[in-house]
């Protein structure tokens, strides 16, 4: 037996009737269906066929509903009463609730149907929104991961860097000397704990493989507890282990533990060979334990160690600092200091106290001349350089979303006008504005949620790309994912946007002029001027945004181009570099016999010989630092001008074999280059570069002058051109070049540079073989074409430029689509008017000019406003610009011209369509 009432209720929606009436109609119809059903049974059909027979009596339920509603018009109640009735019914029996659910489902079904009927609009709108939402999700996800997630250092707000400063060279983030550190510990009260660390690299022997080079930190025993880093296995250092002559113990990273020790829980006690010395492992640190180290080192003026390698470096080894003031006296500055503020202290009071102590030290010791301190919050050091570019990116991406919304709003408005007749008819038939509004809202929400789905997928891919392309000194970027917060934010943004879009057609429908709407589209000769202005404003706003982003991208691109044309002073093309560090065990470094490090010189000469003999090698050289390695500086005094030299800045010391200048080095300006004959036994000589010649010998001839340092008086025998070894964007540093034989590295570090006529990568296997022949236990690293190193040095700049250009292109695209659609739409609206004009004899050109003129006017306004905004906001990019000001006229003019041309192109097609209007058709379409 079939429940016909349920069936009827499920199909017949009569929301406007009183409950009693609706009930009666439903019952009656159910009864009638039942009669048909029984009739059929009586005639001999089986139950299924009888049911089908009954159901066939009403083929179109919506039609019946409409007729019933029409018939029942006298029984319908005023609007407010109906609202309250519906509210009542919402809490009644399941039959009524079912009606509400049915309504919601109907709305959804209706919305989907409408969206499917206009695939053009739906696809364009959804894609546009997807781009906006996706971009925002990706950037917000990155922001969340990099900046917003709490740092793994507990109480980071009370931790500060204690940098030293040098008034003479104007640097503010220098490492400190060991005696200064010990004095600060003794005399200072602002810090509860003051720890020291230095970055370094070590070779680890790998049984059965080539040795590997690891980034390491030498830390005082307070360091890890100060940073709140606890070991995963084992313990951190005791104070006794941090003394000179203490045991050789190390901590290893979790990654190292996994990779080379198989996560052995009994790893404590095992022995590694680092730089050929045995070291006992006492514990394992988690991979987050080096948080911020890279950023601290990267912001230092020098001694950046592994932070200068433009690759993602993780600290794999921790060893005790064991600071020795005898071997590291007050005039060398190898360590960085970091402290946790005492409870009563603030950064300000700490600054005052430490400056006072630094002044005392300056008065007491000659080596501290010009040195002060600078206390900086750790948070600022780590996150400070990241905040401006990130917020700029967030701003840019928000602008893209706004542009996308503007576009879709415009599309909606256009579509809304087309639906006026439909809406008017429904209103006339008794559809209440509330129902219409609800349907539009549902439509807007569905469109936006669809777009959000696509957008999140796009964002997912985007995040992966961001992580891969990003500069290595952005912490936690490679681990950014789309997590719950981000999804929640995306959902909220999408719902908001969807509601906004739902409102657009509703607002339109509300202000509808029923009469003209029923007369059909284009009922009036021209559209309401108010609506026109709104659309025009939207398009101008979009154009302004596009101009803003394009100017930004243009400035960055121009900077990049200018940077690429900078003469770096060295020639990287065709050069291969290979770095190594000779362990002091087998290559002793004895200061008593400096510079006669016999084993080191023997190795250098042997390597050079072998390298020069390799097939494909045009010339070879060995240097202390390669051209993108800033190296270190030293104080500098000309013999006879020592008093003056007290105020001089330090000079960068470059050491190289004679072949350096042939292989990569700067050209000779005067005098002679270094020669093979400048051996350890020969008279000490050096070269200076042009910058140093100007600075230290203004108006004088440096040739033949003598410089005293490192235990000898060295004669200047030549001047070479400037090399930009502190990076392409920085000014060329003051430099002196010494023969490697007369000034070998005290840490055994060296780099082999080979020039070849063909692809440098082809040399790699033979180079590695050459090293292996000479010393199989030596780790060789950083083997890459020098051009790659150059490219890596501009990673951050390139990254931001790429991103901003991408955004600019997206916004431009949206703006162009916006112009096109608004002009198209207006042309269609004015079909009648244009038809009349043509009929009255207006020429094709005139029509073209009108439409294109309108497009131009919109573009012009947009360009003006956008340029004004760009003038104000481009300052944000100053840090990333090179060689141009943020108000570079050339860029502004180029962007304005480009966008004007685009606007012209975008206006052309609608204009052409306007001229093709057939006047008779146009007039008849009324």
């Amino acid at each position, binding site marked *: 037996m079939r429940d016909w009432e349920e069936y009827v209720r499920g199909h017949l929606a009569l929301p406007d009737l009183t409950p009693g009436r609706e009930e009666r109609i439903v*019952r*009656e*119809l159910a*009864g009638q269906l039942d009669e048909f059903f029984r009739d059929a049974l009586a005639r001999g059909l089986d139950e299924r066929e009888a049911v089908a027979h009954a159901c066939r*009596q009403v083929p*179109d339920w919506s*039609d*019946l509903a409409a*007729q019933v509603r029409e018939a029942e018009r006298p029984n319908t109640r005023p609007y407010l009463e109906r609202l309250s009735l519906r509210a009542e019914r919402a809490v009644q029996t399941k039959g009524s609730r079912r009606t509400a659910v049915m309504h919601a489902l109907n709305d959804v079904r209706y919305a989907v149907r409408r969206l499917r009927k206009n695939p053009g609009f739906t696809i364009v709108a959804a894609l546009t929104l997807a781009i906006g939402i996706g971009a925002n999700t990706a950037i917000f996800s990155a922001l969340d991961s990099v900046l917003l997630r709490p740092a793994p250092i507990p109480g980071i707000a009370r931790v500060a860097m204690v940098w030293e400063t040098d008034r003479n060279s104007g640097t503010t983030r220098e490492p400190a000397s060991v005696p200064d550190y010990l004095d600060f510990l003794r005399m200072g009260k602002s810090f509860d704990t003051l720890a020291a660390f230095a970055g370094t690299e070590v070779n680890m022997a790998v049984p059965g493989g080539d040795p590997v080079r690891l980034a390491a930190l030498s830390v005082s025993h307070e360091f890890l507890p100060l940073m709140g880093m606890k070991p995963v296995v084992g313990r951190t250092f005791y104070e006794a282990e941090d003394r000179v002559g203490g045991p050789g113990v190390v901590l290893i990273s979790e990654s190292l533990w996994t990779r080379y020790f198989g996560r052995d829980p009994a790893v404590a006690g095992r022995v590694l060979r680092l730089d050929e010395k045995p070291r006992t492992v006492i514990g394992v640190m988690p991979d987050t334990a080096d948080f911020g180290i890279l950023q601290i080192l990267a912001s230092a003026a020098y001694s950046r160690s592994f932070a200068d390698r433009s690759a993602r470096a993780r600290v794999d080894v921790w060893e005790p600092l064991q600071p020795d003031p005898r071997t590291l006296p007050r005039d060398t500055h190898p360590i960085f200091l970091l402290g946790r503020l005492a409870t009563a202290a603030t950064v300000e009071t700490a600054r005052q106290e430490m400056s006072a102590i630094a002044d005392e030290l300056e008065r007491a010791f000659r080596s501290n001349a010009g040195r002060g301190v600078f206390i900086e919050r750790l948070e600022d050091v780590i996150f400070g350089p990241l905040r401006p570019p990130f917020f700029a990116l967030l701003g840019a991406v928000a602008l893209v979303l706004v542009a996308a919304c503007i576009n879709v709003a415009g599309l909606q408005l256009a579509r809304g006008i087309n639906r006026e007749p439909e809406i008017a008819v429904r209103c006339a038939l008794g559809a209440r504005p509330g129902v219409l509004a609800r349907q539009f809202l549902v439509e807007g929400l569905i469109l936006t949620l669809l777009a959000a789905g696509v957008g999140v997928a796009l964002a997912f891919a985007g995040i992966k790309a961001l992580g891969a392309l990003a500069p290595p000194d952005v912490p936690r970027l490679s681990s950014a994912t789309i997590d719950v917060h981000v999804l929640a934010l995306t959902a909220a943004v999408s719902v908001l946007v969807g509601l906004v879009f739902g409102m657009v057609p509703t607002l339109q429908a509300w202000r509808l002029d029923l009469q003209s709407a029923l007369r059909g589209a284009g009922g009036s000769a021209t559209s309401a001027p108010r609506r026109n202005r709104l659309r025009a404003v939207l398009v101008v706003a979009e154009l302004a945004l596009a101009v803003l982003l394009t100017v930004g991208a243009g400035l960055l691109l121009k900077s990049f181009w200018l940077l690429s044309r900078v003469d770096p002073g060295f020639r990287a093309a065709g050069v291969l570099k290979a770095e190594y560090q000779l362990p002091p065990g087998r290559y002793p470094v004895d200061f008593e016999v400096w510079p006669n490090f016999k084993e080191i010189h023997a190795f250098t000469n042997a390597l050079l010989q072998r390298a020069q003999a390799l097939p494909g090698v045009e010339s070879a050289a060995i240097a202390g630092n390669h051209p993108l390695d800033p190296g270190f500086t030293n104080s500098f005094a000309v013999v006879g001008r020592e008093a003056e030299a007290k105020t001089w800045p330090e000079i960068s010391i470059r050491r190289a074999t004679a072949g350096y200048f042939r292989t990569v080095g700067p050209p000779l300006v005067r005098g002679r280059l270094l020669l093979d004959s400048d051996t350890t036994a020969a008279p000490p000589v050096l070269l200076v570069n042009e910058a140093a010649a100007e600075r230290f010998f203004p108006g004088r001839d440096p040739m033949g002058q003598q410089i005293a340092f490192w235990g000898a008086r060295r004669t200047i025998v030549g001047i070479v051109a400037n090399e930009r070894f502190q990076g392409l964007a920085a000014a060329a540093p003051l430099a002196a070049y010494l023969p490697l034989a007369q000034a070998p590295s005290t840490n055994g570090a060296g780099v082999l540079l080979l020039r070849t006529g063909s692809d440098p990568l082809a040399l790699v296997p033979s180079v590695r073989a050459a090293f292996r022949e000479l010393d199989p236990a030596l780790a060789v690293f950083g083997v890459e074409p020098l051009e790659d190193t150059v490219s890596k040095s501009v990673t951050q700049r390139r990254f931001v430029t790429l991103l901003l250009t991408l955004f600019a292109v997206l916004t431009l695209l949206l703006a162009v689509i916006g112009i096109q659609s608004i002009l198209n739409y207006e042309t269609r609206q004015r079909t009648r008017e244009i038809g009349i004009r043509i009929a009255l004899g207006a020429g094709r050109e005139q029509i073209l000019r009108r439409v294109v003129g309108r497009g131009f006017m919109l573009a012009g306004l947009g360009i003006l406003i956008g340029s004004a905004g760009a003038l104000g906001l481009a300052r944000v990019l100053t840090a990333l610009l090179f060689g141009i000001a943020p108000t570079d006229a050339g860029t502004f003019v180029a962007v304005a011209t480009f966008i004007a041309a685009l606007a012209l192109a975008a206006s052309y097609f609608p204009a052409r369509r306007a001229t093709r209007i057939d006047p008779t058709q146009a007039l008849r379409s009324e």
Partner: protein
Amino acid sequence: MFSPELKKGSVEMLILALLETRPRHGYEIGKLIESRSGGRIKFALPSLYPALLRLENRGWIKGRWVEKAGERRRCFYRLTPAGRRTLAAKRATWKEYLAAVSSIMRPDHA
């Protein structure tokens, strides 16, 4: 067999006529129209039912739920006094209309 336009104008009148002698329920009315016209006039439920509602809302017929022994509840409609007057008027109009149309349709002699 007859076009919807022809039927549309007469459904209300037919219903009123069928209710003249005694009250009937909706299903019965439909079946009766079909049988009395020899199957030539059929009204589907979506046409008939709204017509019933219209007539009721104009006050010409009135529906009442009646439960007979052993049968389901059915809504029986009967003519109101206003309905009878309307029926009489419609009948008269119909007769005049028929007469007028016939006189036009007669073939011409002369």
